[in-house]
């Protein structure tokens, strides 16, 4: 049975990474769009960022040196990623459900990372696995894992309750939305139950992770815990195939759209890229864009004056 567990977990990790990377690459490869930023932009100069100002507030802004303010981005991103600051600001009642759910998932991801570090260190350095440091990491992982499970499950139940009872959410709720949350509750619940009910002396989370790394087929996983692990692995593989991959999209919505305020005057590479787009041939059918049978480039469309029927 353990080989099934190892195989499913490995395949799920592969799908998660591959699908996530594919999604990110597909977004990164979409053409550079027209500017569409939204203020405040946190990497603006510190004296402007507080009131949401931009470099357009400077006279002859193109002559002024561009000041990057990486700290501004970080100051925004850390509370946004860790504590869902935006949701807390604009939708407090949903935040009470969504924050524990997401923070619980962060803790679970952190737990997994801790277990991997401990297991890898144990294999690479003799004696480490039985040492104090490894024991501390294991205890830390246990605390983080249990807290993460509790938070994520209660958060998911809260979100499901909200989705089923709030008329505003019901209008656009799909069966998939309900199933997704049930999947979280089921998989994480099973994982938690399997962990809690594991037999005394049987392998726990750290042993199973160590076993996975060494592909130890002698390991005997308790059936309930194995089922929880498999269900959670399937959930992990499923996430990037759905809109729940918004953690990937969010990078682009912020960095490539809301905060992309870079003027073209400072970027020759982008100017060349944009010039290429003008050779695309749109097929929009409205009469003011092109005449039937003609397929002008975007550059030619722009150069045409449909009101005077002339082309420059």
């Amino acid at each position, binding site marked *: 049975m353990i080989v099934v567990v190892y195989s499913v977990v490995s395949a799920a990790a592969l799908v998660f990474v591959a699908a996530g990377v594919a999604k990110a690459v597909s*977004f990164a490869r*979409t*053409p*550079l*769009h*027209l*500017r*569409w*930023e*939204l*203020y*405040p932009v946190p990497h603006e100069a510190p004296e402007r960022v507080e*009131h*949401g100002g*931009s*470099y*357009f*507030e400077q*006279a*002859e802004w193109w002559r002024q040196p561009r000041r990057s303010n990486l700290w501004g981005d970080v100051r925004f991103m850390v509370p946004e990623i860790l504590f869902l600051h935006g*949701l807390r600001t*604009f*939708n407090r009642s*949903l935040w009470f459900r*969504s924050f524990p759910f997401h923070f619980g998932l962060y803790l679970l991801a952190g737990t997994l990372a801790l277990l991997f570090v401990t297991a890898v260190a144990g294999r690479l350095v003799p004696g480490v696995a039985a040492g104090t440091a490894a024991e501390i990491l294991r205890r830390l992982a246990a605390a983080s894992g249990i807290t993460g499970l509790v938070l994520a499950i209660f958060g998911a139940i809260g979100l499901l309750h909200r989705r089923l009872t709030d008329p505003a959410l019901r*209008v*656009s709720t*799909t069966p*998939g*939305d309900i199933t997704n949350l049930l999947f979280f509750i089921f998989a994480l619940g099973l994982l938690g139950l399997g962990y809690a009910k594991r037999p005394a002396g049987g392998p726990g989370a750290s042993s199973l992770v160590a076993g996975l790394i060494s592909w130890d087929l002698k390991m005997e996983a308790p059936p309930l815990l194995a089922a929880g692990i498999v269900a959670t692995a399937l959930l992990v593989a499923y996430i990037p195939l*759905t*809109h729940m991959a*918004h953690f990937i*999209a969010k990078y*682009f*919505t912020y960095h*490539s*759209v*809301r905060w992309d*305020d870079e*003027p*073209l005057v400072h970027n020759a590479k982008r100017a060349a890229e*944009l*010039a290429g*787009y003008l050779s*695309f041939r*749109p*097929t929009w*059918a*409205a*009469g*003011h*864009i092109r005449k039937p049978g003609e397929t002008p480039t*975007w550059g030619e*469309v*722009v150069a*045409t*004056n*449909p*009101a005077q029927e002339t082309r420059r």
Partner: protein
Amino acid sequence: MKGRARLSDMSRRSREPLLHLEKGDLPPLPPGTSPAAARPAPPPRSLAAEFALDDARVLSLPNPATPEEEQALVEQFLSGLEKLFSRENNWTFLQPLLLTVEHCARCQTCSDSCHIFEASGGAELYRPTYRSEILRRLYFQHVKDGGLVSAWQHGTVELNWPLVARLAELAYRCNLCRRCAQACPLGVDNGLVAHEIRKLFSQEMGIAPKELHASGSMLQLKTGSTTGMNAAAVKDNVQFIDEEMSEKTGLTVETPWDVEGADILLIHNAGEILAWPENPGAFGVILNAAGISWTMSSDLAGYDSVNYGVWYDDAQFARVAVRHAEAARKLGVKKIVVGECGHAHKSLLVVADRLLTGDLAIPRESFLTILRDIVLGGLLDLDPSRNNFPVTLHDPCNVVRLMGIVEPQREVVRRICPQFREMHPHGVDNYCCGGGSGFAIINGNGFQDWRAEVSGRKKLQQVLDAFADCADPSIPKYLCAPCSNCKGQLRDLLAYHRVWDSYRIQYGGLVELVVNAMTAVRPGFIEWEWR
């Protein structure tokens, strides 16, 4: 208001509007406002679209007589939908559109940020996600060719002519102010969805409000201005304004035309020249008094900064933006300065930035920074006591939330208006005036009432709250709105609710306040008569 609208209602084959708002559905306004009409008047039956959305109508939609004609229109729509998600046709906005369509969590966090949703008493049809959800389902069904799994994951909606017709109208129940996008924790932009739906209808099916297209961008490309003024007419009108201003101020006002090598090419929203001539006049007074080297251009579109394409059509947008830049290139000016027009600011300084390359990349700047430097730099003798009346400032979304110009106008107002007070919220968190994205110039078929009752309601509340401590009509008050379209909407809004009589609130631009404070000008530049 009828019951909560469902997504499937959009496909309903009923001639009754999906939404009808009664006065009792709308949040109350402070005492003293008395609407000219009890509620938005529905369009005349003869003019009503067969499958109506609500009490107003913006578009002239085809009226298919047979199922075959309906099907042909639906297929046209589908063809446009596919193009909306293709690189060649929509490279301009493909990335933000995909991000929005594929990743909205439908948490409805954005709803409370929308002034239209709030002012309608929470009408489901106006929820920012409602139209996005329709487009999202169509995208997964018809562009991604989703099967059963997709239907289970993303939901479905019946695609038929009633849905297409209503979706076209629904794209014009959003001001594109993007306050909803600001609130979205994921960065999803439902304002962009409305923009993209408008594009689909215009660029594929040739459907757009006549005020924006036929009498808007097409007229501008034909005559040079959406007002219909050609070069000779605009010069005549500006000469008349110069004479009026000279007489009124006691200073000699002369507008320079087509001056090669000038420092600044000033481009106004040409609507100002006809509707609020004191605004371009005030610009002339200030720039001449400050000794600025400037000119106006009589080239095609060079004297009208409007660019309605930014609201509904990428091709029209790009054509006009290029002509603005060409006018500047021909004169060899050092920079283009945009006057008091919000969407012209965003169009020319922000959205067109990635179109105007090579010799069209003329530096472009807001008038606000120039004015700030003139006022704070001591280039004019100013007496703030001349503006000693309550003043509040409206933030045009295009200038503030969408391009981050927040402080320069405040620095000016604080310097010259002793009784300045902010609205709440303001700056990048402001509320739209309700006239954004072209609404201010669209009037027919119940729409003017709709924007006074619904889309402008939140702004009216804000304005009245800002002057709550001096509501007495014996105290004249000034609502400063440095944007032509906002002014148009505020004029209609204040008139509709009869605010002049009960509160004595005048509206106007920013440069008028500056000229009113100039000691070299005869007192009383701002007139306290309702226009």
